[in-house]
Each structure stands twice: as structure tokens, then as C-alpha cells.
């Protein structure tokens, strides 16, 4: 506990709900609206529990949605003076299942078919299994997607929860077939890891007993995104053990339905009598206009949400609607050429601007495209969703880079420990060396890498000197890491990290004064003075092909828009194109006319006027 901790503690003591959540001693659900300071409450509570309530060998379990959110959480905890110890778990759901369920107990219960040592299926293998399922079922690829199967698998666990999610009998059949083939392959994937762990917790008293002894408290962030399996674990722990649950989430920010994460689970928890429900309804981010506008886009049935601006009081929002003639490129250009200069003129710094695009997939590399344009205009930017994934190894490389730039930022021992454990994990013959020999070599390599000018040279030097790619061939734990590292190298050689200084890579997770470019999904948790939303075309956002009005999928699109708008503190700029050319499956270009998105219409209803509605040319 340090000064910052006490300062922030004083801060939340002034908000009745936050203070109540911070001090709760029993099972608690915190329903936290946008900008309600939930991360602060959660991290302060974590610190308090670790210091005063949890004693080794018990520890704190703190689970969040993604590696990125975990990294953020850890950073916040460190700022409050938290020191890592062997008893606490702070990580993702997968990490938790791996470290605390599958590794210690997998080998004890052969009936669950947990491969020992753990073998994680590569994307290639998953693809093969998927193809096998498709051909066994005799359907076309568009008959059922991998995403459909995974969603069904995530929902397949049957436990205590009474939430009913309608399932498609064909999806059930396909997912069971997939599961069977995966089992036969002797591997697990992220979904089966979580499902098997949940099953073990439910069925094996000893596992429950250990969890209870190990973790008197479970703090769970982004509950609405974590899916059914976690929900079942929580219910199981609540019913069968003395472990306490502190769950934080917001049904209205549930945007991962395609993973099987529906708001219904959080809702169920919220209505349970043995959970205290604490809503956080103060908004410390946006002005009241933005709050109301974002609630409009949700289009929920009454009663209407009631959130109050507590920081930007009495301020009004500024919305701008810009229509381009054709294609995505015009949208990028107007952003770089006109919108950003204007925002800068108003005194808004780069870091207070967020550009939210649709996706960063192979077919629609919108983040990369946007970034490329910013690069041309020499506008500094920061990418939340890169083409490569922020894996453990990528994070570690970044930490190594930080050490190369400033020794005080990272512990060399810690970096080496990770490397050494990788050698062991991959049965690398170098693990047999004297540890000190390996350590000396590693030290020399890192020192030697310091004189590399740019990210690409540095990465190449590190990869070659450590023989990293060779080690990762046929990796059980990181089967797709070499492909991922190739994407990283490509980014450094040809794309948005080209000719970048090492510091850019080292602090990739911490924007300096840069514009943030992100997908809509990855914008969660971020906030900006001004948010620029691209691709506001009906059919593209929301996606309407084969999506029924009022369906779960459509509701989720509304929530996604809600999340995006509520990132803004004050200002929101929406952009759309009238025509966009797509490639048909045969590879022919096909130009389609697009109407404005329904969200555009909702917002223009509330905020639109001649003053703020433009075509790209006259903006």
C-alpha cells in the first residue's frame, strides 16, 4: 500500500456505491456502467484483500477477460505498491484453468483425457478437425462456421445455471463431433481446457477443496464476457465452498456473444439472493449528452438506464456526422486529412483521440489500412489490435526490449526465468546446460541486441541468437507461435512497425502521445475525449445478413455501439460511405450501395442538425 493507494481510497470513499463495493465482505456483484470507476474499485479491493484478509498459503484469484486486460490490471496493482507473490493468481480464465486445475489435477483423473504434458491444438489442427466435421456432416463451409461450433461448445456445459440459451440441433451435433475429434487428436484447445476444468471442479470434491483453500476470494472482472463455463464455476464455488466471489461486469457491455458469452449469466448472478448487488451508476468519464446518446443506441425496453455524469457536469456533447461518397479509403483520408487537424486545433491531444474501425481480419484489415494512412500523414498512432496476437512470448519480447532500453524497468532474472522455463517446456537440449552458462549467454545476447537500430533488426537478432523459432517448432503449449512471430516480423519489416525505434515496440502496450486505432470490440475499457467511428453503414454495422431483428445477435450489435459511444468523454465523429466495393467469393469486385447505420440514425435524431452534418468534401 502506498500513497497512491491511500489517495484513491479516499477518492472512492466519497462515492457511496463504490465504497460499499470496496468494503463488501460477502458474495458481491457490481454492475458497473461505463466510466463508473470499476477498475479502480476492483484493484483497490484486491490490494486490501491481499494485505489484510488473505494469508499465505492462500492467495487472491483475480480473473479478467484477455491478456491485455490482465496486463492493465497488473499494471494498476503495481502502481498501488502490489508485489507479485507465488500465492496470488492474476490472469485470464485460460491461465487459471491451466495453472490451477489442469496442471495439478489433470493427471489424477484420466477420465477427462487431459493430455500430460498438456498439448494445445494448433490452428492448423483445429482447421483440419473443422474440415473433418464439415465433410462428415456433408455440408458446405457456409453451412456452419468454426465460430458457430465454438460458440456451441462454450455453451455446452450443463451445470447449475438456469439460463436458457436456444441452441440449434445441427450446431449441437457439429460441436459434439468436433469435441470427439479433438479428443481423439490428443490435444485440447482453449474451449475444451475451460470446459474440462469446469467439469473437474464440479465433479471432483478434492479440486473444489483445493480451490477453496487456495483462494478465499475470487475477483472477476468483465464478468459478462467470460461465458458459461466460468459462470458455472462461480456457482459451484458459491454453493459448495466458502470461497467469496466479487464479480464486476455490465450486461450492457456484453459483446462477445459469438464466443458464447451472454449477458444472461451476469443477470442470473445479479438476481441471486446470496449475492449482494451493487450498481455503480455514476459516470466519471462522459458528459450527460454522451451518456444519453449511448443509451439511445442500446434501444432497450424501459425502464431506461439512469446514469449520471459526475465529472463533466453541465457540459454538452459535440457530434459530427460525415458522409463519404465511396469506399473505406475515403473515410481514412477524411480522418487523417481533416478530422484530426481540426481536433488538434481545438487543443485535443493525440492521446485523447480514438479511431474505432470494424475489424482487423485478413479480409478486412481496417486497422492496418487506417494506420497506413496515418503513417503517410506522419500522425503518431498506437494500435490496440495488431495483426499479431499479444501472446506470452510477445509480451516477454517487449519486456526484453524494455530492459535493453532501461535496465530499471524489468528484472533480468525474471526475463531469464521465463526463457529458461521455455527451454524446459520445449524440451530444448539447452535446458540441460549449466544454468549459469545459459544465463551468461542470454545476458550477452540481450546486451548485444542493444545496438540494433530498429524493431525489425532487433527482433531478427533476438530470434536468431536465441534460436527462438527452432525451439518453437511443434510446440505443445504454443502451437501457433511461429506463425504469430512471423506476423510480428512482417509488421516490423513491411508495415506499421517498419523503421520504428525499439522503444516503440517495447512500449507497444502503453500509448504515449499517440492516436489510438482499434477495432470496436477492442475499444472496451478505453476512453477518449473524442471518438471517431468509421464504417457506420447499415449492413456493415450492424451486420444484417441473415440476422433477424430483435435477435440476440442484433441486441449485441446495439451493445457494441453503446460500448463505442460511451468511450467518448465529450465528442463523437461518425463516418460512413454511400458505396463500398467488396470482393465476391469468386474474386470479382462488387459495389454495393449502403444506407446509414441505424445507430447513425438514432444519434442523428438526438443530435443531428445542419451545423454538424457534412459530406466528406464540404467538411
Amino acid at each position: 500500500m502506498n500513497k497512491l493507494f491511500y489517495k484513491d481510497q479516499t477518492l472512492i470513499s466519497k462515492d457511496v456505491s463504490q465504497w460499499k463495493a470496496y468494503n463488501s465482505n460477502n458474495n458481491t456483484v457490481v454492475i458497473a456502467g461505463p466510466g463508473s470507476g470499476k477498475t479502480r474499485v476492483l484493484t483497490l479491493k484486491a490490494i486490501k484483500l491481499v494485505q489484510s484478509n488473505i494469508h499465505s498459503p492462500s492467495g487472491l484469484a483475480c480473473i479478467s477477460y484477455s491478456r491485455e486486460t490482465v496486463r492493465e490490471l497488473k499494471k494498476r496493482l503495481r502502481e498501488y505498491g502490489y508485489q507479485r507473490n507465488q500465492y496470488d493468481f492474476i490472469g485470464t480464465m485460460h491461465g487459471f484453468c491451466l495453472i490451477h486445475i489442469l496442471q495439478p489435477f489433470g493427471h489424477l483423473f484420466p477420465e477427462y483425457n487431459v493430455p500430460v504434458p498438456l498439448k494445445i491444438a494448433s490452428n492448423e489442427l483445429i482447421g483440419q478437425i473443422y474440415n473433418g466435421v464439415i465433410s462428415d456432416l456433408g455440408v458446405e463451409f457456409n453451412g456452419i462456421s468454426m465460430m458457430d461450433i465454438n460458440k456451441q461448445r462454450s455453451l455446452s456445459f450443463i451445470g447449475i445455471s438456469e439460463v436458457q440459451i436456444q441452441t440449434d440441433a445441427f450446431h449441437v451435433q457439429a460441436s459434439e463431433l468436433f469435441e470427439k475429434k479433438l479428443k481423439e487428436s490428443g490435444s485440447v484447445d482453449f474451449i475444451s481446457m475451460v470446459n474440462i476444468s469446469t467439469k473437474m471442479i464440479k465433479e471432483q470434491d478434492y479440486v473444489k477443496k483445493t480451490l477453496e483453500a487456495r483462494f478465499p476470494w475470487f475477483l472477476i472482472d468483465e464478468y459478462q464476457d467470460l461465458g458459461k463455463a466460468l459462470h458455472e464455476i462461480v456457482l459451484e464455488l458459491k454453493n459448495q465452498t466458502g470461497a467469496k466471489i466479487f464479480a464486476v461486469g455490465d450486461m450492457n457491455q456484453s459483446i462477445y456473444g459469438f464466443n458464447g458469452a451472454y449477458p444472461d449469466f451476469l443477470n442470473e448472478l445479479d438476481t441471486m439472493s446470496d449475492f449482494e448487488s451493487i450498481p455503480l451508476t455514476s459516470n466519471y468519464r462522459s458528459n450527460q449528452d454522451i451518456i444519453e446518446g449511448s443509451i439511445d443506441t442500446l434501444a432497450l425496453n424501459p425502464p431506461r438506464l439512469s446514469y449520471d455524469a459526475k465529472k463533466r457536469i453541465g457540459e454538452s456533447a459535440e457530434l459530427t456526422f460525415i458522409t463519404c461518397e465511396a469506399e473505406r479509403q475515403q473515410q481514412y483520408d477524411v480522418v487523417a486529412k481533416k478530422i484530426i487537424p481540426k481536433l488538434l486545433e481545438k487543443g485535443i491531444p493525440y492521446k485523447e483521440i480514438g479511431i474505432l474501425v470494424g475489424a482487423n481480419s485478413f479480409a478486412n484489415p481496417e486497422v492496418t489500412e487506417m494506420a497506413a494512412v496515418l503513417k503517410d500523414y506522419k500522425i503518431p498512432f498506437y494500435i490496440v489490435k495488431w495483426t499479431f496476437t499479444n501472446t506470452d512470448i510477445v509480451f516477454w519480447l517487449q519486456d526484453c526490449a524494455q530492459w535493453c532500453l532501461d535496465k530499471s524497468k524489468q528484472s533480468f532474472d525474471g526475463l531469464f526465468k521465463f526463457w529458461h522455463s521455455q527451454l524446459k517446456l520445449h524440451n530444448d537440449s539447452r535446458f540441460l546446460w549449466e544454468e549459469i552458462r545459459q544465463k551468461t549467454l542470454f545476458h550477452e545476447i540481450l546486451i548485444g541486441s542493444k545496438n540494433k537500430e530498429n524493431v525489425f533488426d532487433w527482433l531478427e537478432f533476438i530470434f536468431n541468437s536465441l534460436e527462438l523459432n527452432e525451439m518453437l517448432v511443434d510446440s505443445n503449449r504454443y502451437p501457433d507461435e511461429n506463425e504469430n512471430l512471423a506476423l510480428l516480423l512482417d509488421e516490423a519489416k513491411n508495415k506499421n512497425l517498419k523503421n520504428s525505434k525499439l522503444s516503440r515496440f517495447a512500449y507497444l502496450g502503453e500509448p504515449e502521445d499517440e492516436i489510438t486505432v482499434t477495432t470496436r470490440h477492442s475499444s472496451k475499457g478505453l476512453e477518449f475525449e473524442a471518438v471517431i467511428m468509421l464504417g457506420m453503414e447499415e449492413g456493415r454495422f450492424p451486420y444484417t445478413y441473415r440476422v433477424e431483428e430483435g435477435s440476440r445477435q442484433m441486441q449485441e450489435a446495439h451493445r457494441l455501439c453503446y460500448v463505442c459511444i460511451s468511450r467518448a468523454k465529450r465528442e463523437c465523429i461518425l463516418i460512413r460511405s454511400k458505396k463500398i466495393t467488396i470482393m465476391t467469393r469468386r474474386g470479382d469486385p462488387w459495389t454495393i450501395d449502403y444506407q446509414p447505420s441505424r445507430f447513425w440514425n438514432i444519434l442523428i435524431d438526438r443530435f443531428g442538425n445542419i451545423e454538424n452534418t457534412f459530406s466528406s468534401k464540404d467538411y
Partner: protein
Amino acid sequence: MKSPFISRVKIKNFRNFLDIDVKLNHKQVLVGENGIGKTNFLRAIQIILDQSFSDFDRELSSSDFNDSIETPIENGEEIKITIEIQNYEHNRQLVAQFEDAVISTNPPTLQINYKYYPIKDEVEKIIRYQYIIYKGINEEKIFRREDRDLLNIKVIGALRDVERELNANKRSPLYKLVKQYNIEQDELKKIAESMKDAAEEILNLDEIRDVKNVIEKKFTTLAGLQQDNTVNLRPYDIDIERLLYTIQVYMGIKERPVAELSLGLANILYVSMMMLLLKDKTVPRILKVEDYKNLLDKEGVEIVTNNYKISVTENNYILKDEINADTNKSLYSFFDRYNYQPHTATILALEEPEAHLHPVLQRLIYREVLHKSESSVIFTTHSPYITSVAPLETIVHGRYEVNQTKMFSTASLKIDEKDKEDIERYLDAKRGEIYFGKGVLLVEGITEEYIIPKVAQLMGTPLEDLGIVVCNIHSTNFKPYVQLLESLGIPWSLITDGDYYELEIKKDKEGKEKSVKHYHRDWLEGTQQNFRGIELMNKMLIDLKICEDKDIPKASFPDQLELLRNNNCHVGFYTFEVDSMANSNEEGLLTFKKVYSEVRSGGEKQQENFDNEIDDRNFWNALKKIDNNISKGRFAQRLSSQLTLEMVPIYIKNGVNGIINKVRANHE
């Protein structure tokens, strides 16, 4: 609540042990000859669990490899020690700490491994050796100091200076015991001050003042021009910690200090304090008022309010006496949850606790410890008084084989409850002698008990020279004893009567066939033979899975006898005396008559009748006369001194030879 215990030990290549795998129990008594490696067995456990061992102690060297392994270091041999722990699951801290060490959940079992192994370079050249201690199956889960803080072993060596340890201030068990109570510092300060005040009174004595003056004067004379010549006297400075050391044990009404106690009593005192110290303290005996109040809002606190009462000083709440087992269990789980003090599980190992202790006390004390104590204890001992009161399933026996020691234990012995009671009673009465034999010859009665040592002597090999023990089990229920000996790896043979009987098939009133066995009859050439002894032994071998039913050559008694012989069972024809008489020549029969005459109670007539039966070769009648007029035991006692080899039936000789050969084979 019984504490965790070491349930299994596996050792490879370490000192006496080449490859052993032995199951242990909550209480364990290690027996075996000197030099068999009892201390090394404990040391293997200590390498993993002993907190007082340094890293240097855990780092082995080439001399720690078993002697039979040639150039172990050059060949890259490894030393491995594995221990398993059970009965820890009621302790949440252990469950949490050893998450990665679980190797079974039914019953919950932890595993900890030690490995001393070579580090090789890329061309597989050995660079050096190092050790690793890890939890469970994953070598990445290192067993560290904080693991040892919660689970460890305390070995009290055989050669200890109890007096010194009892008075060793900070290391004294009494001081540690007192320390555990966390006595209020203010209280101690008050006492220390009043003691100081009282002590200063001494300075006011005229005699002391005079001493001060004398010293001062002398000092001045010697120091000459030295400026400041004041000398001050002060009683011992009493600080709070020292106050606690000053508490010492005095025994008896005369309050004798430890130094004056006999070594044996000091030993008991020391051991009993260690046992107290190691007791699971999850449920506190004393709760400070403040701590008590903090518990009041906890769920299920009634269990505390009902079972603690305020002390006389009103500073503390004291646990009531006479808490029943169920309540104790509830208290345990309550405090396990809410009392965050680390509760260490310590396994106690006592080497030769019999030292300097009278046999009667040995039995009294260790019966109590072995049967009732909640702590897990391992003894090494040579004392039959301790083994005799040890529960059957607590024995570990070390036995020397070529180049190595093998360890055998009774921990997983499955013996019928009644048989078990019988054996335990037998062991108790016979001072556990069965455990100390290098070989055991089991016999069914008093006659054999007297005769057989003599037979061996006549055959030129006194049994005592080889450490063979003759155990008379007073029945033909050999099975549990054989099980016990087999589980301990002790070579055995048994000698039993053939008990020939005549079988008569009768029909009862309803015409049902009924067989009647007639014992004590002579077999007539050409009639059917039946032997209860053979039947019993066959059944035993089958029950113990030494033989299968189909292996028994039912058609031929000589073949059956041979099979039994090969499996260490030596069976006679009738009973020893009758077989012996039948085996004897004139001279031998004369000896029977002579012995009878020496011990008979009646007159000449009695002798005449006996002689007649012998002469008529009515040996069963002769035996009946021995039994009625003298008793078989008394007769055998006397007979043994006059026995000649010619009189000894072959099955007895075979039995004696059998065990002698086995013991010899093991030691050559």
C-alpha cells in the same frame, strides 16, 4: 485431529538402499540390526523435510551412492528419494500449499521428490551434479523453504544431551512451548520490573554495601591516578525474553532440577515436551479477549462461545476440558478457516528412545505414544519393550541383502481383526521377539518350543548363533504370523503336526451322510490316510496365494509334503511325541521311559503302566499318560536335555535345516 504422516518412502541408490519402496503408517517403529541403515532411512527423509538441514547437507556426493554401484558419477547415476504424505486434507493450509504435489485424491496423497542428478552439456558430457527437490510429478514445481515451513520432520538423535537441550535457552523446548502462547508483553514487562525492584533490595544489605566499599578501595589502590573510581553493583539485568528462559522444569515433590534427574526421566521429559511442541495448534488452548471478540461476527462462532470460558484473570478465554471428538472436529474446521497463524505439521522421529529407560517405563510411555498421540512419530529401536506394544501395522523391518538393505513394512498388512488381536497379544506377551529374528521358526506348542532349539544344537548349529527365533504360537493358526513375517521379509519356517485321523462316514436318522474324524488312532497299513495338518497348511498356502489349488498334488501325500516343504511348511505324521517314539530305536524308547520316571508324580505303578504302553508300542496311550500325569510341557522340558538325534522325526530336522539354510543364504 491426527496429523499428516509419511505414507510411503521410495529410495534409489542412496547409501544402504539400492531400490526400496516401503509403505508407512501414522506411527512407525523401525527395527533392524545395527548398521542396517535405520539412520540413513531417516536421513533420506530429512534431506527433503528437515528444516535444520542446510543446502550443503542436501547436496550429496559420490560417497552417498550405494556401494555396489561402481563409479556412479562417471556413469551418470542418479539418487532419488520420494516421499508421500497422507492425512493432511483437514488442514486447509497444506491443501493450498501443496496444490501441485497431489498425486492421488483417493486417499488424498502428496508426493515430494528429491533427485541428485548429472548436468550434461550438448555432447552429453557430465559437467557436474546437482539436486532438485520438487512437488508432485512436475519438476518445475520446486519444493522450497516455505513448503518446509508448513511440513517438516524433526529428528531427535540417539545420542543427545538432554540436559543441555532442556536448558538451552532459546532452543529449549520449554521456552518454545511458552513462546507459542504469545504472552502479553506488558504483563511481562511489569513482572520484569517488579523482579528488578525485588532484586535491588539485595543492594541494601549491609554485607553487600561493605563488599562494594572493599572493591572500590582495592580498585583505587591499584588504579592509582584513575579519575573515576566508583564501582556499582547491580543484580542480574532482567529483560523480558530472559524472563521466559528462566522458567525451568523441576521434578517431583522435592523439585529436583533436570541435572539431577536420571537420564531416562530427563529423556521422557524432553520427548514429552517435543510432542507437545509438535501438536497441531490450530485450535488454540488460550484465546486473548481481543482475538475472541474478533471471532464473534464469524459464521459458526457458537462452537467457540460454547467451548471457551473466561479465565480467572479475565484476560483470556480458555478452552474447556473434556471436548468430545465431534466438537473437536468442528472447532478444528472453524479455526482452520479463521485462525491465520501458520500451523506447521511436523513429523517426529525418535532414534532409540529406549535409551536409559527402565523396561516398564518404556512399555508404559510408548504404548501411550503409539496408540494415542495425534502427532505422527517414527521410532527406530532395538527395544523389544517398544515393539511389543506397537500396533501390528506400524512395524518397518530393515533387512540386509546382497549389497543393500531392503525395507519391509506391515503398513498394508491385511489381517483379520480377531487374528490381529491375537498376534498383538502374543507380541505383547513375547516382547515382540518375532521382529528381532534373522529367521523365525514357527511352532504350534510348548513341546516344540523346548525340543527344537535342542535339535538344532544336536545338529551342530545352535539357533541363537544365527539369530533364529523359535516362536510358539500355541495353535495351528499360522496364517496371520506367516503374513506378518512375509510382509516384513523375515525368513520363516514352520513345523506342525500331521494330525492323522481316521474318517468314518455315518448316516444319521434321516439318512444323511455325516463324516466323523477320529484322531489319536494308529494308522493301519492299507487303510486310507487323512492328515489335518496337511489340509490346514495347504489351505493356508492357497489363502496366502503362495500356491494355487490346482498345484496341490491331491493324489499323493509324499508329493503334498514335498510341496509344503518347498514352501517352508514342515508337517509330521501324528504329533511330535508319537512321531518321535515311532522314530526311536530301543535306546530312544528307553530314554522316554527314563524321562518319564524322572518327572512323574505317582509311584512305581505309574511307571510300569507307561513302560508297558511303550513296550506294546501303544504310543498314543503313552502320550495320554504323559499328558494326564505330568503335562506335555514339563515332559518336553526334561526330554530336551536327554534327546538324541535318532529320536527326532525327519520333518523336525527338515524344518530346522530349512530355516538355517535360508538365514545362511541371506548372509553369505
